[in-house]
């Protein structure tokens, strides 16, 4: 007997907030892994990069001499998983002397009011 899966499908708006730099801790990497898993379940997943989290998207990161696998390239593949909502906090970017051109993927740079509004629209917000 085939089940009607469609009836049970619930798409939730889930925002992952990245607030830590990429290599000092494993938080940002774990967030990315979680995003990929949730995307596989067709959830409405977004990521917001705030504070040191914006460093996660910095171009030209080369971890070869740390002898750890870099995960920056995965961000460029998010599009293939239909994860297209990447938001970057303008103030965090500017405070760190970075611009959109310094980032490895296309993002939406937004002010805090706009990101705050998006946060209010989520079913779940996952801190990292």
């Amino acid at each position, binding site marked *: 007997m085939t089940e009607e899966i469609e009836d049970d499908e619930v798409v939730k708006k889930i925002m992952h*907030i990245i*607030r830590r730099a990429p290599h000092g801790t494993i938080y940002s990497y774990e967030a990315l892994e979680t995003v990929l898993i949730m995307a596989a379940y067709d959830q409405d997943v977004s990521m917001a990069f*705030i*504070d040191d989290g914006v460093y996660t998207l910095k171009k030209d990161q080369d971890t070869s001499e740390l002898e750890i696998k870099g995960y920056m390239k995965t961000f460029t593949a998010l599009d293939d998983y239909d994860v297209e909502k990447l938001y970057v906090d303008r*103030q*965090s970017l500017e405070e760190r002397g970075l611009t959109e051109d310094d980032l490895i993927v296309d993002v939406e740079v937004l002010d*805090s009011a706009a*990101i*705050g*509004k998006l*946060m*209010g629209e*989520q079913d779940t*917000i996952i*801190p*990292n």
Partner: protein
Amino acid sequence: MINQSPFRAPSIETATRFIQADDAVLLTEDGVYGAQSGQKHSDLIKNAMANNDVYVLGPDVKARGLEGKLLDGIKTVDYEGFVDLVEKHNVNTWL
């Protein structure tokens, strides 16, 4: 909901920047240091209180000896009050 001291992390400063009209702030654990009056970062919570309710978790305040040292207007909740706030709001945790 914020659980970091303002001297240790920018969580209070950043979280309050994204605050919306109906949001409330709950300070727990080391976050309650942010509600202490007369410290370097007191203005962060003072500014948030201008438009939003700010709560501290009572047991965390008591554990840190901060009773009577909080900014005027801070609301103290117990664990039941904590649960009420979580039920009422879309939770956004700032670690």
